[in-house]
Each structure stands twice: as C-alpha cells, then as structure tokens.
C-alpha cells in the first residue's frame, strides 16, 4: 500500500442539483452516506483530508464518527469556487502525490484503490452517462491510453473528478479539478466504474448497483 499519497475528498459544495437539503456527500445509499462509503474503502490510508465548506460541522461530525484521524481543510469561499480550489487547498502541504476525489462520487471500491495505487500520476475516466459531460479525448502512448485534453465536444470517456497527480506540480485554481490537471497532460487513464447521482432516477440506479455488489 502506498504511503506517499495524500487523499483529498472534496465535500465543500452545496449539492443543490439533487434537490436535497444537504451536501451530496451526506446522501445515504443503502444506509450509509457516500462519504462513509469512501472512508471505508480508504481505511488503510493515513493522510486523508476532507475539504469542507457548506454544512462543514455536519460533514465533520459524520466523518469523525467513522474515523478521528482525518485532517479537515476549509474552503470558506465554497460559494464562489469549484472543486479545483478545494483540491488545491487540500493537497497543499501534502505528500508526494495527491488524489482528487469528489465526496459525492459513488465509485467501485476496487477502482478507487487502483487509482491510488497507480504507479505515478493518472486520471480516472468512465463511459459517458450524464447530461452534457466533460469528456476526455485519449491517445495511445507506448501502448497505454493517455488523456490528452478535456472537452465538451469530443472524447470517448467521461471525466469523473478522480485523479492522482504530483503535489509539487499543482498550481492554484478556482474552477474544476481538471483545470489544474490540464497543464500536466498527457496522463495515463485508468478506467473506473462509477454512478453519478444527479436525479432521483440516478439515485435509485445507484442504490441497486450497491445492493448488487457494485454490479449492474
């Protein structure tokens, strides 16, 4: 298990799209919130940082009930900034590599571990399934599929918010995480299985997926 990694879970946003009164990381799927599920997968890693903003105290309470040794990072400007700002704040003063993980990402446990354990930097991609996604064009470099850009027009894979990058290459930013990653491209792509939860239908599909052992 790699110990040169800081894992940054962004939970600062308001998650208004689902129409629930809480940040999306606190949405329950099969009796456990998304953030609790992530922390369970990450139980063997030391440097876990949760970036908080909207409903910070609520998120801190839930995280502390799972494990006490998490470092919380505040994004006080969460109303005006995106996950890029949260990731930068969380990765600052971190270990050699930083993993970006959205607190509302429901991801297959094995795939999350594969990204963290990847030898070097990488970007998580999946089959496009959401409305108007950011997609990633790719190119084979020495037999490995590499992400070459982020686009609204072309690309076979959907950006998932999950990536592992060198901490010393991160520059400050206020928009999406991928804006921070763009200058580092091309980077190898790791295919991950995930379920986005934006609507009630998505939510029901996600519940089934988890109930079925993360299989469709």
């Amino acid at each position, binding site marked *: 298990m790699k110990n040169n990694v800081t894992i940054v879970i962004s939970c600062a946003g308001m998650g208004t799209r689902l129409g629930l009164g809480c940040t999306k990381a606190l949405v329950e799927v099969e009796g456990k919130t998304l953030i609790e599920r992530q922390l369970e997968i990450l139980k063997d890693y030391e440097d876990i940082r949760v970036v908080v903003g909207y409903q910070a105290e609520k998120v801190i309470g839930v995280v502390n009930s799972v494990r006490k040794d998490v*470092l919380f990072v505040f994004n006080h400007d969460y109303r005006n900034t995106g996950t890029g700002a949260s990731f930068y704040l969380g990765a600052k003063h971190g270990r050699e590599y930083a993993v970006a993980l959205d607190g509302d990402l429901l991801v297959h446990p094995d795939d999350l571990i594969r990204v963290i354990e990847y030898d070097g930097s990488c970007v998580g991609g999946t089959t496009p399934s959401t409305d108007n996604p950011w997609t990633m064009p790719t190119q084979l470099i020495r037999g490995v599929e590499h992400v070459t850009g982020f686009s609204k027009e072309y690309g076979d894979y959907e950006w998932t918010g999950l990536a592992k990058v060198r901490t010393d290459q991160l520059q400050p930013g206020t928009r999406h995480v991928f804006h921070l990653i763009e200058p580092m491209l091309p980077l190898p792509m790791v295919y991950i299985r995930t379920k986005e939860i934006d609507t009630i239908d998505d939510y029901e599909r996600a519940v089934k997926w988890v109930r079925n052992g993360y299989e469709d």
Partner: protein
Amino acid sequence: MNNRLFLFDLDATITKVEILPALADQVGMAEQIAELTEKTMRGELPFQSSFLMRVEMLKSIPVSKVSEIVARTPLNEKLVSFIAEHKERCYIVTGNLDVWIEELVKKIGLPMTHCYCSAASVENDTLVRVNSVLDKALVVQQFVQPVVAVGDGSNDADMVQMAEVGIGFGGVRPIAYSLMSNATHAVYDEDRLCDFLRMLCE
C-alpha cells in the same frame, strides 16, 4: 527546511484539560469557573473581563501552590514531543498568567522567552494585581516569519485567522465556532495534528 514558526495555545491545546477549572477545585468554585470558561471559549464573554473575573476568584490561593498544581496539568505528550524536537521554532501563546504557568512551561521544555502570556505582580506569595492581559492577535502581528497557529477557543480565532496556516485542534474540547470560521484546517486527533505539523516543517 522553511522558516515557519509554530504558535500554540496552552489550555486544552497543549494541556489535556483546562487549567483554571482544575485550579478552581482548590477553592470550591469549580462550577462557577467552569461555566465562565465555557462561555468564554464559546465567545459569549470577552476574554479579558472573563479572565480577570476568574483570577479574582482564584487569587486567594498562594501563588506557589497554584504554580505547583498547574505544573501537574496533564499534557498532550505527542504534541509536547513535537515542541521539544522543534524548540527554536515553537512558542506558547496564552492568556494565562506568567506567575502561574512558569513551571508548566519549563516542563513543556520551552524557556519563558518562548512564551507570550498575561503578567501579574506577586507579594509574599500572593497575587496582588494583574498588569496585562495578552491579546493573541497582537502577538501574531509581531512575527516577521510565516506562522502556523494552533488553538481551540474563541480567543484563538484572531491568532488563527492571521496565521499562514491556522489550525483548530479539537482533541480535548470542541473547537469554538468563531475559530472554525477563521481556520484553514481542523483536526481532532493528536497524531494527525503532529504529522501535519511535521509536514509543515519540511
């Protein structure tokens, strides 16, 4: 290695319990002092007036006795080890009185030149007056090197806000809301706090 300096609140940050309520047991005023302390830490009473009230309640205890009791306050030992390893870079910033905490500061391993605190005069082992009450924000302003500040109470909020890295430590008691709104980080586990402080040394 960078030039960062580390500023620590004393009560419930370096110590495992609040110092004044522990003292209050001696004069049978534990409840009153604890209530005042709680209100102050939550920011419902201004630190200066609350502190002076609490000192007034406790000043009948001989200073040597107070100093002896205070020196026995249990400490967060891992944090004390961090301070011992980085003596030159660490400072205590506390509203507590010099004449009460000197022995405890020695036990933590720092000289009084690395302790910013309130000051009092003593005659015949009796505290006769408080001369100054420390303003933590003013202390931070004096430093010309980047500062990491660690605290838990409402009176640490300004110090934490002005620091390059401002950490709320909730390992002993809940972190005050005003501090949370001004901090860059919050941590509830002593080991994790020390790991992060070590990263900040690199």
